[in-house]
């Protein structure tokens, strides 16, 4: 079975012009493949580029060199050279993402935030909201909070909204940046349960797990970053 994601020779370097053009290398020559159903845990000390790797795959960061090949709707697309429009399409259908922190927009209700990825796919509003509600319930965010903006929620609540949003529209690939970081044990278990289920259904997952126990519970493989060598 062909991999869903194939990264070859990936290099990322930050060039900070406003600080005299100093270059900060993140990694070089990185190779990685990901197949259906895998849960790949990216490990490594702080600053070795774990989040950067996820952002490169998602297209937020630009690659310095290399290839990030994604299986998208029957063809193989290199995200490193794809047009912004195509990356947008890939994000809507092929790669889902749960960032480390929720970007909460004031006045937008929680339910709408979670339903949004489905609406962007053209899903019917009623069905989208129903699915959003189901996910929020599963993550113990009670209905009385759904019409509120998550701006005033606790860190843990915000993270759970973020996760619900990431899982709303099922995509072949899912990127998770510290999904259990701010969660208490009960919620942590819920999230890990969702990850396992998704993986069992074939979703390929790349995750950054600070917590070794969580990592060990769900990861099928690890990928270690060691810093620029």
């Amino acid at each position: 079975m062909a991999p869903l994601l194939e990264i070859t020779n990936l290099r990322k370097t930050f060039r900070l012009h406003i600080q005299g053009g100093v270059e900060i290398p993140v990694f070089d020559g990185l190779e990685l493949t990901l197949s259906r159903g895998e849960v790949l845990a990216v490990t490594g000390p702080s600053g070795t580029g774990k989040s950067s790797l996820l952002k490169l795959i998602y297209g937020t960061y630009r690659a310095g060199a290399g290839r990030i090949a994604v299986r998208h709707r029957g063809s193989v697309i290199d995200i490193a050279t794809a047009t912004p429009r195509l990356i947008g399409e890939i994000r809507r259908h092929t790669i889902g993402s749960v960032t480390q922190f929720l970007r909460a927009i004031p006045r937008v209700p929680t339910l709408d935030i979670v339903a949004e990825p489905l609406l962007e796919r053209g899903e019917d509003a009623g069905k989208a909201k129903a699915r959003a509600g189901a996910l929020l319930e599963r993550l113990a965010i009670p209905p009385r909070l759904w019409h509120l903006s998550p701006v005033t929620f606790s860190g843990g609540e915000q993270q759970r909204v973020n996760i619900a949003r990431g899982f709303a529209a099922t995509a072949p690939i899912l990127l998770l940046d510290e999904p259990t970081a701010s969660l208490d044990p009960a919620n942590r278990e819920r999230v890990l349960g969702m990850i396992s289920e998704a993986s069992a259904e074939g979703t390929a997952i790349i995750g950054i797990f600070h917590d070794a126990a969580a990592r060990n519970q769900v990861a099928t493989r690890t990928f270690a970053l060691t810093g620029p060598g």
Partner: protein
Amino acid sequence: MTETNDQPLLVAEGLGKLYGGRVGCVDVSFALWPGEVLAIVGESGSGKSTLLKCLSMQLEASSGRVRYRLRDGRTAALDELSEAERRFLMRTDWGFVHQDPRDGLRMGVSAGANIGERLMAVGERHYGRIRGAALDWLDRVEIEADRIDDSPLAYSGGMRQRLQIARNLVTGPRLVFMDEPTGGLDVSVQARLLDLMRRLTHGSGLSAVVVTHDLAVARLLSSRMMVMQGGRVIESGLTDQVLEDPQEPYTQLLVSSVLQV
């Protein structure tokens, strides 16, 4: 929203505007698809307003051209349209939201008439339906129905801006140009307006080109972004790309200059 929209809605090719020897904007090329919101970001004098005016046919470009896909599927070069076709386009398929709502409203006429005017301009002759459409849009932009007969002179700045948006959207345009739509408004008023614009553009298939100096507005509204400096587009890409991984020195300066609250 489907992915069958293969053809771009608006294409700029090598667009430029010179004022004598002075550069307004130069060598601007991009394509905009249905449902996309493009932010044009830059500081004063960057050429972003000039670019917007060239795109929306308010200024005649010195070089390059702009192509637009009309409702019937035909793509037309805007400079080849007749005056009548241009004006019709501006009244039906396009919208333009000015920074100062007074430039985009008839201040001497009621809010209902402001919204209804475009409908009357395209031949709607039933008072009841016109008023119904006006009430519907007032509701969508969160203005109370009992303000329908008030003149915009009696409205606050934020209300006027929302009324301007309603007036532009009543004919179901496919492309809306916005020039600093939140400029001059109080922060809380801005937030409400941005939320409205976000709801109206996202998932409705409406395309928009938004000129702003405020990166937060760009982040909130747009899926793609162009950064302008000295009349040129110096960086462009997806909004999160440009804001989180800026490549050019000027872009890095802009992004780092924004205070985090």
